[in-house]
């Protein structure tokens, strides 16, 4: 209980410290900022141990040995070595060693990306665009997708018919960006509401 009260006051102090930057840069804000970076870096170490190294290496190795799956256990040496090679990036003389695990991760990313890009995005999105033009919405969607694609075709100057279609594309893009802006404002204000609720309800019980 007492720890919760102390914690609430610590949280409120840190909240006000960060918000004080709105007035001007000051030592309280700088302390809070450095505290945040330090704690986040510490979290990274704990995550690496608790959610990766321990369960996927140490515990997996022990479990496989216990179940007499010796190949499954000892083959974990390979990703362990790759992981340690990744850390060599911090030492300039042997930083080139980290290219191997980086290549491994990049290769996996590229392979997965191609399949997902086609199966997970291109095919469904293109097939959904090609609907019968029997409703206004389908027609608008069709024109919008084509016009937007034409706008981003910069290999030819936007003149004549291409210019007209590009201008239609700009209309759709501006509407989309306006909608994004509206939603972004909503999102940021929601975050502010959350902090104000904490200050006015959890810290100072003004809201009951």
């Amino acid at each position, binding site marked *: 209980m007492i720890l919760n009260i102390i914690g609430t006051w610590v949280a409120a102090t840190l909240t006000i410290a960060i918000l004080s930057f709105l007035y001007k840069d000051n030592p309280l804000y700088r302390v809070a900022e450095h505290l945040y970076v330090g704690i986040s870096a510490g979290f990274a170490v704990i995550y690496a141990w608790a959610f990766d190294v321990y369960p996927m290496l140490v515990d997996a190795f022990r479990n496989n040995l216990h179940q007499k799956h010796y190949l499954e256990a000892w083959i974990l040496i390979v990703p362990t070595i790759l992981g340690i090679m990744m850390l060599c990036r911090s030492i300039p003389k042997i930083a080139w060693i980290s290219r191997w695990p980086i290549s491994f991760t990049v290769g996996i990313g590229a392979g997965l990306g191609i399949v997902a890009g086609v199966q997970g995005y291109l095919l469904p999105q293109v097939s959904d665009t090609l609907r019968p033009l029997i409703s206004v919405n389908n027609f608008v969607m069709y024109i919008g997708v084509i016009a937007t694609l034409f706008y981003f075709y910069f290999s030819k100057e936007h003149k004549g018919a291409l210019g007209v279609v590009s201008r239609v594309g700009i209309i759709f893009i501006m509407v989309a960006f306006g909608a994004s802006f509206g939603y972004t404002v909503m999102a940021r204000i929601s*975050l502010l509401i*959350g902090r104000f609720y904490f200050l006015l309800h959890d810290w100072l019980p003004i809201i009951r």
Partner: protein
Amino acid sequence: MTFWQRISTVDRRILYVLLCLAVALPLILKPKTQVRVSEPVRSAFETVDKLPEDAVVMISIDYDPSSAPEVQPMLIGLLRHAFKKNLHVIVTGQLALGLPLAEIALNQVGPEMGKTYGKDYVNIGYRPGGSAMMIGIGREIRDYFRTDYKGVPLDSFAFMRSVHNYRDIGLLVSLAHGAVAEQWIQFVGGRFNQTIIVGCTGVNAPSLYQYLHSGQIKGIIGGLQGASEYEALIGKPGSATLGMPAQSAAHGLIILLLIIGNLGYIISRRKKKQ
């Protein structure tokens, strides 16, 4: 300096004070507002509602404290709905900093709805790897999560014994604040035909409507507004509904100031031309 020029260049700290008042006063005064439910949120609600009893729902916590005010009410609403329908819930995540938020929500809603950890829901924790992990658990969850987040083997939980991959999961819910929701849709929805609904921040909502239109996702709960709509549908108003009057006031203020600022701009431009 003319009146309009002075208005356009007002000290930003006055604007900050106005915003603070617009947010704080409705929170204190708590005016009543009515929430209108939009089609994407209704669709998300119905997708959960149509699941049979004992179906398994996987909720992926893909947000962190920076988006918690928007997305945490969605998680709480979804958990209340799922537990009311007697669904089994598996919680995992793609953002390590978000998992404790799930723990907080589970410890609030679980006892409230009379549900027990291990029997009705399980938190399997976080693993790095992103899309690789998403595809990997399509073969076998235990390749990545042999135990829950506390180290208890998954097979110790009765309902988890029959859950091996996406074929055994009725619905995947991604509560996301970045591009992770799109990864679930493209990597898992595309490859495994998994039914997906997405709860997201306002920043990401516009980019997800194309997936809703193509049927790749069954619903979107977007931003604090979406969270308040979901709370209205389950009949239990929470922090999202409480925040809507403040949201209204802030939006009204910003629209008013945009109109004033642009009026000043148009008048100043006309005077310059003359």
